[in-house]
Structures are given as structure tokens and as C-alpha cells.
């Protein structure tokens, strides 16, 4: 128990009260998560993983719990296919057992997002039934409440695209997302984080991918004073695949901290990661990524790349791409780069008559372009480009 939480507006008793109306197993899971939160030390600037984060003027104190309203816009095609969208509370009440077990399992905790597993209220649940093929993106947006908790289950051989957006007015968010892909399922998941500039945001996304299923995630980071995102992918079935994309534009005093896990737990699994950050002003990005290939996860293929573009003198980037490999019949590669806008590219663009700032902006757009191209969904590209454009327009100005 750390004393700093004693003053926090959240306690074990409060969590117990919140969970009292739900089933026993869910309450237990809430309490386990709260205990995990309590057992992990409150970060200081000398804590592992926080050493390079400037915590001055940042209030990490958890917000008082409140209901998070999840609006899941099911397109007609999804309704026709039998997709279910509801609050997580409703989903649990309707005693759909897989929901409860999902809430209970995935007991992988991070300091702050563990609160989303303990103090969530309302929550969101999406189930796409086996075999459904939903082409239109399913839009999920949150209102109110600091602890959004989302569970998405994609049934066997079903296909869907989900775009999750947060309440832009939130000052403190600590969210948790569980993505369950049953065998042969395919999910494109986009996480849009464009919260207010002064907010503190935690997000923990965890995916379990079944046999021959494929998950493509795109994390878009634009908002927040401090945004820490954990993306954990567990490739659990043979033939499972994961493409993980990330795109950050940081300016001012913004700090982005991404932690990723590519967990190869079964043979014949493949993962590919590309996280890109463009950093302006005095912003800071810290990327920590690990590829784990378990003993026995033979014929795994894993790739991880973190690219950082420093646009300003005061911008900083840290990167820690890690590998833990315990099987020999694998191909595993990672790469990381940090640098300014390439002088050759700049010169080339300028030689065609572009002003230096215009050229720099073009190069930043190109830098992001690779991520969009990999994701390959024009509607998503348009949405994100629209969001990032006003910020890119300031580059070099």
C-alpha cells in the first residue's frame, strides 16, 4: 500500500460498492485489479520506465469514479449480421458467460489502467457473431467517466473494423480495452486519442488472437499532456497474425509514452509493428517495445520498427526496442531510428521550388503516409489526416 493513494478519491471500499450490484466473479476481478493498482508503486522520476518522463506539473492522482457512457454506432450491415452492442454492465447482466470470463481473465495490469479494470462503470461491449462480415466501420465513442472499459469479441471467421474515440473534454482518463479474436477472425481496430491538451491519459489495450485470426491495430496519438499507452498482443493460436501501427504527432510540452508487446505464444505466428512519432517544440516520446517468442513458438516471424522524427531543437525521443527469443526457427528483426527531417529529401523538395517550411510539412505528411498506407483503409486515413493536418500546418512556421 502506498500512502499517496490514501488521499486519492478511490478506495477498495468504493470499488467494492461499485461492484456490489454485479456478479461475484466480476467483483473479485475488480478487487484484484485494485489490489494490483495499490501494489504497484506510484511513479516518480526515478522509477523504471518513468525516468525520462517529466512529471513536474502533472497530476497523476486518479479521478473519482463515474459512469462512462459508451456509444456504439452499429451500421445497418452489422445489425443485420446479428452484432450486439451494449454497455458492459448490461452485457454482464444478461449473463453471457464469455463476457464475464473476459472481464475476469486478461489479468495483466498496469499501474493506472488497472483502475479501469476495478472502478469502471457503464462500459462498452461489442460482439460480432461468427461468420459475420461487416465492411462499414463500427464507431465507438465515449462520454463522461474517467474509467472507460471496452470489451470487443469477434467471433469465428467474422470480420469487422472498429474505431474508438474518447471524450475530448476529459481531463483524466484511464481506459482498458480487451480485444478477443476467435479463430479465423479479422479485426481492424483504430484507437483515436485526441483529448484535451492538459489531460492525463492512460490506455491499456490487450488482445488475444486465436488460430489463423488477424488483428490490425492503429494507435493515433495527438492529445494529452501526458499520454501513456500499452498495447499488448498475445498471439495464442497457430497462424495468428498481428499488425500494430502507431502514429504520434507531439508538440508543446506533450509527452507520449508507448509500451508494446508482441507475444508469440504459438507456432507459425506473425507480427509486424511500425510506430512513428513526429516531435515538435519541447515534446517527448518514449517508446518501449518487446517481442517475446516463447519456447516452442517455432516458425514465428516478428518485426518491429520505431521511427522518430525530431522537428525542433527541444524535442526528445527515447526508444527501447527489446527482443526475448526462446525458439530458434524464427525470423525476428527490429529497428529504431531518431533524426531530423532528412536533408537530402528537404533539398530535393526545395530544388523543385518548394519553400523550406512547405517542404518540411510535406515530408512529415510523407512520414505518416507509410502508416496510412499499411493500414489501407481510406476512410480512416481521411479521418486521421483531418485531425493531424492543423498541427502539421504549424511545422516550420
Amino acid at each position: 500500500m502506498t500512502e499517496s493513494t490514501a488521499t486519492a478519491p478511490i478506495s477498495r471500499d468504493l470499488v467494492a460498492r461499485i461492484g456490489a450490484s454485479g456478479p461475484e466473479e466480476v467483483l473479485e476481478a475488480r478487487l484484484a485489479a485494485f489490489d494490483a493498482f495499490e501494489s504497484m508503486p506510484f511513479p516518480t522520476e526515478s522509477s523504471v520506465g518513468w525516468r525520462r518522463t517529466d512529471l513536474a506539473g502533472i497530476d497523476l492522482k486518479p479521478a473519482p469514479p463515474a459512469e462512462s457512457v459508451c456509444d456504439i454506432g452499429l451500421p445497418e450491415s452489422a445489425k443485420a449480421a446479428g452484432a450486439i452492442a451494449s454497455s458492459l454492465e448490461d452485457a454482464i447482466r444478461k449473463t453471457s458467460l464469455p463476457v464475464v470470463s473476459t472481464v475476469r481473465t486478461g489479468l495483466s495490469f498496469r499501474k493506472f489502467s488497472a483502475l479501469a479494470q476495478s472502478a469502471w462503470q457503464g462500459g462498452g461491449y461489442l460482439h460480432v457473431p461468427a461468420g459475420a462480415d461487416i465492411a462499414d466501420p463500427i464507431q465507438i465513442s465515449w462520454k463522461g467517466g474517467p474509467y472507460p472499459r471496452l470489451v470487443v469479441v469477434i467471433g469465428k471467421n467474422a470480420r469487422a473494423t472498429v474505431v474508438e474515440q474518447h471524450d475530448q473534454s476529459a481531463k483524466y482518463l484511464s481506459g482498458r480495452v480487451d480485444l478477443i479474436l476467435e479463430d479465423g477472425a479479422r479485426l481492424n481496430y483504430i484507437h483515436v486519442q485526441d483529448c484535451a491538451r492538459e489531460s492525463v491519459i492512460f490506455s491499456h489495450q490487450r488482445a488475444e488472437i486465436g488460430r489463423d485470426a488477424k488483428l490490425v491495430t492503429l494507435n493515433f496519438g495527438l492529445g494529452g499532456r501526458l499520454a501513456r499507452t500499452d498495447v499488448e498482443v498475445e498471439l495464442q493460436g497457430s497462424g495468428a497474425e498481428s499488425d500494430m501501427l502507431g502514429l504520434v504527432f507531439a508538440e508543446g510540452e506533450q509527452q507520449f509514452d508507448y509500451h508494446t508487446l508482441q507475444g508469440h505464444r504459438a507456432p507459425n505466428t506473425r507480427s509486424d509493428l511500425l510506430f512513428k512519432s513526429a516531435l515538435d517544440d519541447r515534446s517527448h516520446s518514449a517508446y518501449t517495445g518487446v517481442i517475446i517468442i516463447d519456447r516452442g513458438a517455432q516458425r514465428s516471424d516478428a518485426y518491429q520498427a520505431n521511427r522518430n522524427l525530431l522537428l525542433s531543437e527541444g524535442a526528445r525521443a527515447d526508444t527501447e526496442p527489446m527482443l526475448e527469443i526462446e525458439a530458434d526457427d524464427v525470423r525476428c528483426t527490429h529497428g529504431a531510428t531518431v533524426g531530423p527531417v532528412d536533408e537530402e529529401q528537404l533539398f530535393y523538395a526545395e530544388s523543385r521550388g518548394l519553400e523550406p517550411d512547405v517542404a518540411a510539412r510535406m515530408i512529415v505528411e510523407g512520414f505518416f503516409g507509410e502508416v496510412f498506407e499499411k493500414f489501407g483503409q481510406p476512410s480512416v486515413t481521411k479521418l486521421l489526416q483531418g485531425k493531424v493536418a492543423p498541427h502539421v500546418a504549424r511545422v516550420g512556421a
Partner: protein
Amino acid sequence: MATKPQTLVDKDYQYGFRDQTDTYSFKARKGIDHDIVEQISQMKHEPQWMRDFRHRSLDIFLSKPLPPWADLEALDQINFADIYYYMRASDVEGKTWEEVPADIKRTFDRLGIPEAERKFLGGVTAQYDSEVVYHSIRKDLEKLGVLFSDMDTALREHEDIVREHFATVIPPADNKFSALNSAVWSGGSFIWVPKGVHVDVPLQAYFRINAESMGQFERTLIIAEPGSFVHYIEGCTAPTYSSNSLHSAVVELIAKEGAHIRYTTIQNWYKNIYNLVTKRALAQKNAHVEWVDGNIGSRLTMKYPSVYMVGEGARGDVLSIAYASEGQHQDAGSKMVHAAPNTSSIITSKSVSKGGGRTTYRGLVKVYEGCDGVKSNVRCDALLMDPESRSDTYPTMEIDSRNVRIEHEATVSKVGEEQLFYVMSRGLTEVEATTMIVNGFFEPFVKELPMEYAVELNRLIALEMEGSVG
């Protein structure tokens, strides 16, 4: 600093050293405390500042925890109370050839190591007599004004130079093991190269190995004055046996403006040894430091040769290989700290894990604010020979300056099936083909070694591979 026992005695007499009758005469015993540290210092007749330094360091050692990120499963096996922290040559001798493990003797045979060297490497004699070679080199060096001696002698004969530089690159508080070394150090090499002097011959610890220079807690300090060059080689490819399980050296290099130091290590300790070494270089303006570092032996090695580039235009290179077989963990890497503009670094790391062995690359590239024009390139390649082996890569990059070019790339794989088939299709057996591919994998390292080391290393890999395939 001569290596013949007689000369040792003669010389030491001059400084009031009386081996037999001294009331403080050292008695080797296990364990570490202030009393042992005091005895070591008194016996060596050290100046007060060094004695204080040792005691201070011991306090740091005793209070510092093991690094939390380390292979604690292995480190926790070290029983610090069950180790001799200081032994004189006379304590080392008296062991017999029979005590040397059979597998080491076999490797000596197959590598064709000369008899005299075998006894030394097996820890049976404290000295390997290569006086002739050594003295001719010494003469040349003297003409150039180069100082080359063991560290204890340097402290007696060149106290001012030692005091000015000693522990300035690696303070005792750097880590638990540098603190331990600082408390109980003995032996090691001291080299001072005058301004503008280019030492053409590599200086090899191998030529002057004795109980202390190859000992447990050696302390090496190399100072290259502006515009000078020196290449130092330590260790050898043949397996080195010691009944003592802890080896913890500190090596400090200081390359002044425009100087160039190359430091080559080949480590092949017997598989009972914990080899926990701190190596760091300071590179001033336009200086260049190269670490060429090979780790083949030991139970656990933790070693991250570093270069702190504090002057504009400084350069740091690390080229390292690691080989881990059953029961071994090679935890090696490098730190490159760019604290001045236009500095550049290259890290090339290659590792092979076999038979359940584990290799870890651990690295840091740090660029301080305001250091424009920094370039750093890190390349790590790991080969896994079987499903039981393991490879980890933990690089960290902390970049606080914009106009820099920082690149890191790492791969982990097994010996390529297509490669193996191609080589075998030319008539080589699977073992021969694998050996050839692994030797090729290490070639960028091997080609930086003097010929005799290169040949021996290739042969050693062949011996290791024979046990591994098929």
C-alpha cells in the same frame, strides 16, 4: 614490475617490502571486510589516499544492491563470503596439473597450446615465462617514453599520474562490482603513452601474464596523451581456468585530444567463472576509442564496454562477439554517451547461443541536449543454434538533440536453411557447413584480431560446433 620472482623481491626490497618477516604479512582467507582491505593495502605499502579509497569503496560495495535488471538467478549463486579476495602468487602455486578439469586439458590438446602456457592457463603456475619477447618490447617502449607496467608498480613509481587519472572514468559508486574492484583491486596494467607517440606493436597482457594481471580483481588504466596511439590486447582464446569463481575487473581508458586507443579482449574463462567487468573510456576532442571484445567463456559475463565522448569530434566503436553454450549466459553490450557535438559511434554485436546457452545484448546510446551532428549506428545479430537456446536484446536510446542520426537494427534467427543447403551441396557435412557459417558470422570480429588469435578462435568454434549439430 618485472615478472621473474627474484627481480620482484629485489625491487620490492627497495621499497621496504619484507615478505617473510613483516608483521602485517598477508594471510589469504575467504570473505571480505575492512580488515582484509586494510591488509591488502598495507602489504602493498600504498599511500594513504589509496587506502582511504579502498575503504570508501568497500562501504559502497556493501551498501549497493545487485543491479535489478541483471540475471539475478545466476548472480544470486555468488557467495561473497566464500571467495578469496586477494592471493599472492605463492598462494596460487602449489596446485597440481591433476586438478585442472579434463575438458580443458582436452581443448589445450586440440588447440595445440604449448606446454608452458597450458600450465599457466590451467592455473597451475602463476607465471608464463616469455621474458625475452617481453623485454625486447619493453626496451622499444622505453625509448619512446611509454610507461607500461602492472598497476601496483605504477602506483609506486608514477603515483602522480595514477592519482590524477585513477577512478576518474569509473568511480567506485558506478556499480556494485566496480565498488568491489575498487576495494580489493590488485594487478592489472598501467599504460601511459606520451603526446604524439604511436606504439606500433600491440601491447599484450598475454606476454606478461602472471597471477595478478590475469587475476580476479585487476585494475587497468590506459592514458593516451594527445595525438598518440596504442593497441592493447588482453586475454587469450584458450580456456583459462581458475578455482576462484569471481572475476571483476575495472578498465579505464583516457584518450586525450586526437588520441586513438584500441582495446582488444578475448575472454575464455572456464564455465564456473562469474565475469563481471566494468570497462569505460573517456574520449576527448577528436579522440577515437575502439573496444574489440570477444566473450566465449565464463558462467555469466556482464560487460558493457563504454565510450563517453566528451570532446567534439570524438569517436567510439565497439565490435563484440558472444558465444554461449550450455549453462552460460553472456550478458554483454555497450554504452555510447554522446556529450559533445559531432561525435559518432558504431556498435556491432554478434552472438551465438547453443545447447541452452543464453546471450543478451544490453546497450545504451545517449545524446545530450545541444549535441548536434551526432551519429550512432547499432547493429546486433544473434544466431540461435537450437530450440533450447535464448537470445535477448535490450537496447536503449535516449536522444535529447535534434540534428542527429541514430540507427539501431537487430536480428535474431537460426542458421539459414538455404545457406546450409548451399554449403552442403558443395560437399561439406552438416557440422562442417555449420562451422563455416558460424565462423563467417564472427568474421568481422576475427579479422580485427592478430593472426594467432584468429586462427585459434576459428579452431575453437569448430570444436564447439562438433558437439552441436547432427
